[in-house]
Every structure is written in C-alpha cells, then in structure tokens.
C-alpha cells in the first residue's frame, strides 16, 4: 500500500509536487500520466526513497519512506539507469544475489523472450535493450511496490507489445502495486487497471479506466445548444469555432439530443483535456 499525505517537493523556489494526497491500496498496474515536467519522476523517486520531500509523509506498507529508510520494499528504475558494464546474464545473476527476493527464473525467461544476448556487455546494448534490462531487473525484484519510469523509451512497436505482455505476466505471477509512467497512452490502456494524471505537481485524476470509458465524452453542436446541455455537467475542456462549440465532459452522460453530437473520448483526448494544455500553451 502506498499512502501520500500532503506531499510537497520544492527545488529552491520551484514547487514540483503540490500537497499531493494519494492512496494506492490494491495490487494492480497503475499508469502515471503527465506532461514533461509535471513531476512524475520526482513523485516516483520520492516514493522509492531516492530523494526527500519538503513536506508531508510517504508510507509504503506502513513504513515511512525517506532517504533514511534503509530498506524501502520499493523497486524503482529510470530509463537511463546505469549498470555495471557486465554481460547481461551476469548482471541478472548478480541482481539475484544482492536481492534475496529476486525472481531469477522470471528474469532469465524474459531475457530469452526479448532475445537479449546473455554474453553481451551492458554498455554495448542499444538504448531499447538497456531499458529492457533495467525493466526486467525491476520487475524481477519482487518488491511489494515496483515503479517504472518511462520504461518503453527507445522500444520499437514489437518490443512495446512484448513489454506490455511481460508486465501483465509479471503481475499475474506476483500481484503487487506496479506504477508505470509513460507518454504512450493508448498502448498501455489494455494493460492497466487505474490511471493517475499528474499535472503541474498536483493529482488531476485518479480513477479506473472504466470510469474514463463511461464518463469521458465530447458534445458538439451549436454553441447555445452545447452550453445548455452542459451547464450542469463537469466540463473539462472546451473548443469554440465560429458559432459551433465542442465541450469535453467527465460526468454521467445525459440523454442524447438530435441537435448534438456525442462521442466518447479516447484516453489520449481525455488526458489532453484534463491537463488543460494544447500545443504547449495554457488555455
């Protein structure tokens, strides 16, 4: 279980995380979405105890997490993690020796599935393969919380599909909390149970994908009709062109009207509307 209470992180004058309250109490695969600089890495590193927060508390399985926590029970890996320049096979073996809970069998299986050359040294691997090694190491750690920061960076389409399968298989074998931060939204949708959207250091959304599927939709039509239809709904975004308008809603859908077009929002569109920016500019 991960519990964050009023978590704030400041770097000098800049506040990266702002009073975050978050409870993840069920095992599952959670997707952490956010724009660049939203605070995703800071949040994940703080949960892993790799850096301290300025205010608030973080607990994992009831244990307070700070850099002072000598054994956090959290496994975190970032995309550019540096490892010993050893053959991949040896690296996985060493990981099983330094971490008593490590699932060496799973790691070896994944190494074979991704056609990683066990004899090839880590520094000689491509960026995608390096990331894959880091991800395997993290998933095989068998810690109660696994945090993967941008794990698909540098992966080709086939590797990404394989990665999502690996994630599901790892979770099925050992159910625990797995948080994956990514920018490739649509692809991971089939794999995850819940979605966390972080925007400018605050949690904007934390709910199931099912709620997005049932509650996120757009209403288009004449501006006055759209405004009338959406006045009691939770509008998360709005586009207006001439006399026509499109409103993006996250709410219980209302009865369809002949003059309005209602479409479900894709996960990506929902995310764009939730973070309230487009093309880098604030709306």
């Amino acid at each position, binding site marked *: 279980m991960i519990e964050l209470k009023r978590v704030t992180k400041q770097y000098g004058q800049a506040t990266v995380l702002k009073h975050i309250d978050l409870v993840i109490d069920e095992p599952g695969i959670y997707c952490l979405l956010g724009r660049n600089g939203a605070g995703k890495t800071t949040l994940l590193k703080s949960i892993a105890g790799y850096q301290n927060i300025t205010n608030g508390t973080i607990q994992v399985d009831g244990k307070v997490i700070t850099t002072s926590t000598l054994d956090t029970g959290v496994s975190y890996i970032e995309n550019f993690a540096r490892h010993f320049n050893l053959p991949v096979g040896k690296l996985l073996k060493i*990981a099983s020796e330094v971490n008593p809970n490590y699932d060496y069998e799973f790691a070896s299986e994944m190494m074979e599935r991704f056609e990683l050359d066990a004899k090839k040294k880590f520094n000689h691997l491509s960026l995608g393969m390096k990331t894959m090694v880091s991800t395997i190491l993290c998933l095989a750690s068998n810690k109660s919380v696994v945090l993967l920061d941008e794990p698909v960076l540098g992966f080709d389409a086939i590797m990404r599909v394989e990665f999502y399968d690996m994630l599901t298989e790892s979770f099925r074998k050992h159910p625990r909390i797995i948080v994956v931060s990514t920018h490739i939204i649509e692809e991971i949708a089939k794999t995850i149970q819940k979605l966390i959207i972080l925007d400018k250091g605050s949690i904007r959304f934390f709910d199931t994908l099912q709620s997005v599927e049932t509650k996120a939709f757009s209403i288009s039509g004449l501006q006055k009709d759209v405004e009338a239809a959406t006045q009691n709904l939770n509008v998360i975004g709005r586009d207006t062109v001439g006399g026509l308008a499109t409103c993006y809603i996250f709410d219980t859908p209302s009865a369809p009207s002949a003059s309005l077009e209602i479409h479900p929002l894709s996960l990506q569109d929902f995310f764009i509307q939730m973070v309230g920016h487009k093309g880098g500019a604030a709306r």
Partner: protein
Amino acid sequence: MKAIFAIVKRLLASNKISFILTALVVLCATSSGDVVLSNGNYTWLLAVMTPFFFVFYDYTKLMYLGASKKDYFFGALISYGILSFGISLVNTGIHLLIEPLYPARTVINLMDVCKWSENGIFLAGLQQMVFLLLVMISLHVLLSMQAHWYGWLTDTILVAILSIFTPIAPLRGILSGFFQVIMLNGNAVLHIGVCLLLSAALSFAGLVVLKRKTL
C-alpha cells in the same frame, strides 16, 4: 548475510582498476642509493583508491540492482576490513621476505617509520591493518559527503585546520600529537584501540550520511 557477501564480492570485483594500478606501482617503482623506500609502502595506494570506486562507481549501480542501503553499508565495511587485512599482509610479507634482499643498506618501510615494528611482526601487521581501515572509512565518509553542503564544509574545516595549525607551534603540537596517536604510535594497544574507536565513530557518521544520500 548472503546479500551482504554478494555485495562484498561485487565491490571487490569492480575495484579491478585500483588493484591493477597498485600492483603496477608496487612492481615497477624503483629508488636508488643507500637509503631506499620499500615497494611494500605502495600497497597503501589501494587503501586510498578503493573508497573512490565504492562511493562514486558502485553505490548507484548496486541500488539499481535492488540492493538495500543497509546491505551496501555493511558490505562496504566488510570489504574495507578484507582489503586492510590483505594490504597489511602483503606489506608485512614484503617487509619480511623481500626487503632483506634489497641491495641498499637501509630500506624504509612505513611500518618502521610508524614504530609498529617495535611490537613484533604480528602486532605491527595488526596495527597497520587497523590504521588502513581507519584511512579507508575516513575517505569513504568524506567522499560520500561531497554531494552535500556539509561535505564542502568539512573539506574547508580540514584545510583550515591544516593551514592554521601547521605554522603556529602550540597548535602544530596538537596536530602532531593527533597523528602520533593514530599513526606514529609504538603503543600497540593504544593505537589499535584509538583506530578502532575512530573507525566505529566514522562508520556511524557514514551511516548518517548514507541515510541522506539521494539517487
């Protein structure tokens, strides 16, 4: 314990550069004349280089492999213990077996300079071992602090102590007294006791620093 020993193995294995450089210097260093330096003295180079690798190279990588900070801490301490024993054994061996073969009349080994040899070869070796342990732990703590403001403050204080204490005679006495206790000490019991106590205190400081270490 299995994890700690795996970390010890990894720390020692990834310290190859220090081993090779030390071996090269020990084997290749030459001096001529009636009074020469023993090549065994250069084994101490390993004690100086090792903490740099443990702190700057191994720590992050071990963390990414899933090691805990606690296991890293104990692993590093055990490795320093093993290395100080090994260095002391090699230098003592050189002192006993190779130095008598030198053509020079006088061969200077730091074990003699530090007055440890006066206590017999076993105690001398032990004194050397605890002193090297102290050196490695001190360096480890000092290097671990470099990413923080208090590391720079400690550097400044150490430089200030050396520059202020050295030219002023009474203060110089204090400084030399300190080094006579921790290094140039013929009293084996006092020397071993002080070095072990300081090592324990510095290890504790190292643990505090490690707890603040970020990634």
